[in-house]
């Protein structure tokens, strides 16, 4: 279980997170939605300790990752797999080196065992046989799949997805959504997905949380969000532009 208590974060005087409180239960698929720039990705980076908050704390299974010692942060990070928005594959490494890097660095597995695990992970994302290819040879969708294979290689408890379908065509995006559901069901992981793609969000979410201006303004199921009366939430899921007066009034 991950607990976020009052996370605040500013960059150069601009406050991005203004006190985010959230609880993420083990095994659930939580989708964090919100407009671009509302702090979704920044919050995601706090969960894995890539950013430290100015105030507040993140607890992962009871261990504080925020502002913790580097050794503790690395120990807690072993529970996570992260799929970045751009996949963030290492350019200078082949697909198999990308997927197997965590295993090489953190386990005493032999080369044969690592190769076997890499092949398993690539098979899970339907990309068998591309071990020797370089990231530059892959399409956007393939890069995301390889990124996901890398994220699951170390058998994490939590998988974080940062805008997993952004920049993909609708069919490829849907296949990524299917993969996220498949990971959730087969690996029994906790999935935390940041997106502003409502089609994806409704397909993969057990629960949705909406961030707006650095705060959580909604938390609930698909049914609950669809019947919401909060204007900004209603407009967001309908894809309507904001009425500034309403936003000001709400806060």
């Amino acid at each position, binding site marked *: 279980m991950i607990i976020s208590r009052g996370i605040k974060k500013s960059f150069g005087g601009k406050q991005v997170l203004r006190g985010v409180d959230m609880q993420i239960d083990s095994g659930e698929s939580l989708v964090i939605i919100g407009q671009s720039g509302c702090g979704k990705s920044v919050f995601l*980076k706090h969960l*894995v300790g*890539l950013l430290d908050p100015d105030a507040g704390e993140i607890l992962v299974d009871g261990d504080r990752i925020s502002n913790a010692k*580097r050794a503790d942060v*690395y*120990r807690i*990070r*072993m529970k*996570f797999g*992260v799929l*970045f*928005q*751009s996949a*963030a*594959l*290492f*350019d200078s490494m082949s697909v198999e080196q990308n997927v197997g*890097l*965590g295993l090489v*660095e*953190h386990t005493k597995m032999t080369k044969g065992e690592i190769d076997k695990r890499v092949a398993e992970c690539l098979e899970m994302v339907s990309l068998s046989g591309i071990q020797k290819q370089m990231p530059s040879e892959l399409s956007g969708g393939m890069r995301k799949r390889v990124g996901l294979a*890398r994220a699951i290689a*170390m058998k994490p408890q939590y998988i974080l997805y940062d805008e997993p379908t952004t920049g993909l065509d609708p069919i490829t995006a849907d296949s990524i959504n299917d993969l996220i559901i498949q990971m959730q069901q087969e690996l029994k992981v906790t999935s935390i997905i940041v997106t502003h793609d409502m089609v994806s969000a409704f397909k993969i979410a057990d629960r949705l949380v909406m961030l707006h201006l650095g705060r959580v303004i909604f938390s609930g199921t698909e049914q609950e969000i669809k019947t919401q009366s909060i204007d900004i939430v209603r407009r967001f899921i309908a894809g309507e532009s904001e009425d500034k007066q309403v936003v000001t009034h709400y806060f």
Partner: protein
Amino acid sequence: MSRAVTIPAILLAPVQLIGKLLLEFTSELGRFGILMGRITKELGAIFSRRELFIRECVRLGVESLPLVLLVGLFTGAVSGWQLHYQLEGYMPFDMIGPGVFKSIVLEMGPVLTGLVISGRVAASIAAELGTMKVTEQIDALESMAISSTRYLAVPRIAAMTMMTPVLVTQVNFIAIMGAWFVTTVFLSLTSSQFFGLIPSFFDLYDVFSGLLKSLFFGMSSAMIGCYVGFDASGGAEGVGSATIKAFVWSSLTVLVLDFLLAMILF
């Protein structure tokens, strides 16, 4: 009752600028210090991940060899030619060999190699790490619980610290050979005239101090390249700026260090 003194904006502007620059410099220095502290803590990684260290020795060191040797060859050739011109009519040409030897080993070999390393290695490290930073590859590494300083910075800094003296040794040799070739083929010297007096002027301390300087040049260039790369932000433009910054800072550092080490060593 005292009256508030109003300072004209034209007088305040330079003070504000100096203050801003001072703050930025202090902040950079602090971030550089923190990174170097982390790197020092993780130096043991050279032994635990030898293959990374060896890969960087080859990539940053061995692959720099053709360029630095070419620079050394022409530097030596020019030194021989110039010294011949300078000594003509004043001193015997037998002094050209020792003159070239001293100037190459003490100063020109280490400093020119240091400057070439700044251009080639510091800038390439900054560009590579900067690109990794802006494309979230460093975040990806960190999210896999792999220390980016241990995995990326330590092997590069250790490799350059070790490889620069090796490069300088070869530059020194090729530069002296360049001077010998020019003075014997194009000018009127014989080989025995060129090499004859070198043993009399040979001092092992000169060679040692030149190599010691080069060790610091290699280390500082790689450290600056890593810091600037890790600190890059803002996409392609940011990477471009980081590359320039790494080259400028590391070149200046080589020259400043050269002066400071000369004061200490001689």
